[in-house]
């Protein structure tokens, strides 16, 4: 399809703006993770530091802001999230698989109904799933009185696993359904004819065929569980997961430690996405090569063998990488040349803040002391004299250097 150059330019601009809208906030957040100031900001830039990834900081007024390594609540939250995610994977993958296989075996009337029921949880608001699970299990716990059942029914981790499994099973189910659509049933029949039992058919034929779907649904289930908030916040009760820890931190006040955490998560995501893409590309090119050689073998004529010229082509992504490198170098250069990096800078900034804080305290105390005494009202006519004093201060021109005749020599 041809399109006019003006339209193309408009579309290009639009795509750029769209991507900037998607990535801009994330990039800015990542930058704030390296600013040593206790409020996540880009301007006023204090110092470049890794402190939010490590120990954090105790502010001049005694407030403790924990960095990633020092935050025990965060570590507990991550551990709980991991437990929950593993539990959800262990439940929802088998459930999704069973439901998808049975879907292929029932007649078409039941199939439509069954499919509708199975995808319902995705259409429920997450909040509702969390509440309904808690409400039901609280009832079960109180009906059985005390004892083990009551403990289970009021265990936040257990409830969260159940609540998340409710809708994550549907995502797994959909992945398995897509894979099952391409399953060749004659394989099963052949195995049965050759004397295999049904259990053998399941483990030797169906399971190996579904292996890719098992792997990808496990990954998807894990990710959905790990990042879920809406359902978890209700079903977790008194425990804490990663997401509820983050939410309570954000509610108390925003700290660059959260930016640092976000940056770690973004880095993991990016690595996963890029490696997935590279693997896919490699598999595709291998497939293409196999096809080429097959074609060549089928028709032994040199005409069909493409001359693979090894002309060096610069991929477009090179420019992006170069741009990023340039940005990093320029930023680093700026930081070093303005002395905005390293221990000295951090110590100096903290000292400045401390002395600023001390000054303010002193001023406050003075005000309190002089409150009783009659403060002389400042005469408006003395204002100009004050200016004279400022200009009369010789220290002000010390660093100016413009009129310094020595500098010319």
């Amino acid at each position, binding site marked *: 399809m041809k399109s006019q150059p003006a339209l193309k330019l408009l579309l290009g601009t639009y795509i750029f703006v769209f991507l900037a809208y*998607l990535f801009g906030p994330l990039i800015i*957040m990542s930058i704030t993770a390296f600013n040593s100031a206790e409020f996540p900001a880009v301007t006023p830039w204090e110092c470049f530091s890794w402190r939010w990834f490590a120990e954090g900081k105790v502010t001049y007024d005694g407030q403790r802001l924990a960095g990633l390594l020092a935050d025990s609540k965060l570590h507990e939250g991550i551990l709980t999230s991991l437990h929950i995610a593993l539990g959800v994977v262990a439940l929802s993958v088998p459930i999704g698989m069973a439901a998808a296989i049975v879907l292929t075996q029932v007649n078409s009337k039941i199939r439509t109904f069954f499919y509708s029921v199975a995808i319902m949880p995705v259409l*429920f*608001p997450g*909040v509702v799933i969390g*509440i309904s699970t808690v409400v039901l299990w*609280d009832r079960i716990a109180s009906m059985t009185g005390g004892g083990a059942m009551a403990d289970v029914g009021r265990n936040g981790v257990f409830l969260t696993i159940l609540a998340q499994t409710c809708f994550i099973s549907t995502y797994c189910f959909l992945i398995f359904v897509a894979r099952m659509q391409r399953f060749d049933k004659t394989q099963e029949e052949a195995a049965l004819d050759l004397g295999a039992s049904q*259990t053998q058919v399941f483990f030797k034929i169906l399971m190996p065929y579904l292996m890719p779907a098992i792997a990808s649904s496990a990954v998807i289930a894990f990710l959905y569980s790990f990042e879920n908030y809406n359902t978890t916040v209700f079903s977790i009760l008194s425990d804490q997961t990663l997401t509820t820890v983050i939410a309570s931190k954000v509610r108390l006040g925003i700290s660059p430690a959260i930016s640092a955490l*976000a940056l770690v998560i973004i880095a993991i995501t990016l690595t996963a996405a890029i490696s997935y893409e590279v693997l896919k590309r490699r598999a595709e090119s291998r497939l293409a090569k196999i096809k080429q050689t097959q074609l060549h073998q089928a028709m032994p004529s040199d005409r069909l063998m493409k001359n693979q010229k090894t002309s060096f082509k610069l991929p477009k992504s090179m420019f992006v990488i170069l741009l990023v490198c340039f940005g990093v170098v320029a930023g680093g250069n700026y930081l070093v040349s303005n002395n905005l990096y390293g221990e000295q800078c951090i110590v100096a900034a903290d000292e400045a803040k401390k002395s600023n804080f001390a000054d303010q305290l002193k001023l406050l105390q003075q005000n309190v002391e002089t409150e009783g005494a009659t403060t002389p009202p400042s005469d408006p006519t003395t204002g100009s004299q004050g200016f004279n004093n400022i200009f009369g201060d010789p220290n002000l021109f010390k660093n100016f250097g413009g009129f310094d005749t020595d500098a010319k020599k």
Partner: protein
Amino acid sequence: MQKFFAKNGPIISTYFLISIGFWIIFLIIIPQLYMLDLSFRPNLPPLLRGGEEDVYTLTHYKHFLFGSETSKDAYNYVDLKVFFTTLATAVVITVLSLCFCYPIAFYIAKIAEHKTARLLIVSLIVPFWINELLRAFALRILFAGEGVINNALINAGLMDNAINFIGQDVALFTGLTYAYLLLMMFPLYNSLESLDTNQLEAAKDLGSSTLRTHWRIVIPHAKAGIASGSTMVFMLTAGALATPVVLSSPNTFWFTQLIYQWFNMNDNWSRGAAYSVLLLLVSVIFVLLMMKLFRVKVGEIVK
């Protein structure tokens, strides 16, 4: 049933039946039914449950409509306002997401070269996988009183005082659009990709204008994707909790926050359940509406 056992063998059949039964009955149906039941019961301390006072009542739904008995207003303006603001905002955000995503989805599906298209898709997937809370936090850094935007504008000399983005809900609405935009993109892209490019060329050869081609050919073809994306965005926006927690101002409530408050802070579980039932009801109505409007089946909405 016997055929089922004969086909799968006893072990596998048992596994199938137990896992599917557990899921459908214990995780999907019973919790929702019990929540519905609880929403019609008064809020009682545990000891009184099942006693004489534990009768069916409409008190929570009445409270939603008319407010507490002691208040003078004819209707419960506070809760009703939150409810309808949430719904109206969710609809607006759904429409906006559709408008924002349509050109890009069309570009990736039909115009871009294979390589560019895949690069774009990967770069769209990456922000999608970053936690909703953290994305809201990123916007919080931008929109805070001493945030990046305010600082930049003041430093550039464009204004003197900081704009209260959070107090005026700019941050909340931007955040909600930001959070669920991509859920419109992927269904839309999938449905546009299956459109035969020959149809577009034929329309052009026959003298159709670009707009007309889109209106008569592309959009009708993409209706399943539009229905699916709209449903997803609407449901998730109306049921969002993470983004409002981070970005809403102290005086604005999202309906889910109201539920949270009844449930966790006021300890009135049955009223929280009643409000959740309302949210669920709205979601179901919206899905039915979409199915009717676009003439698609449930199976086409969730893929």
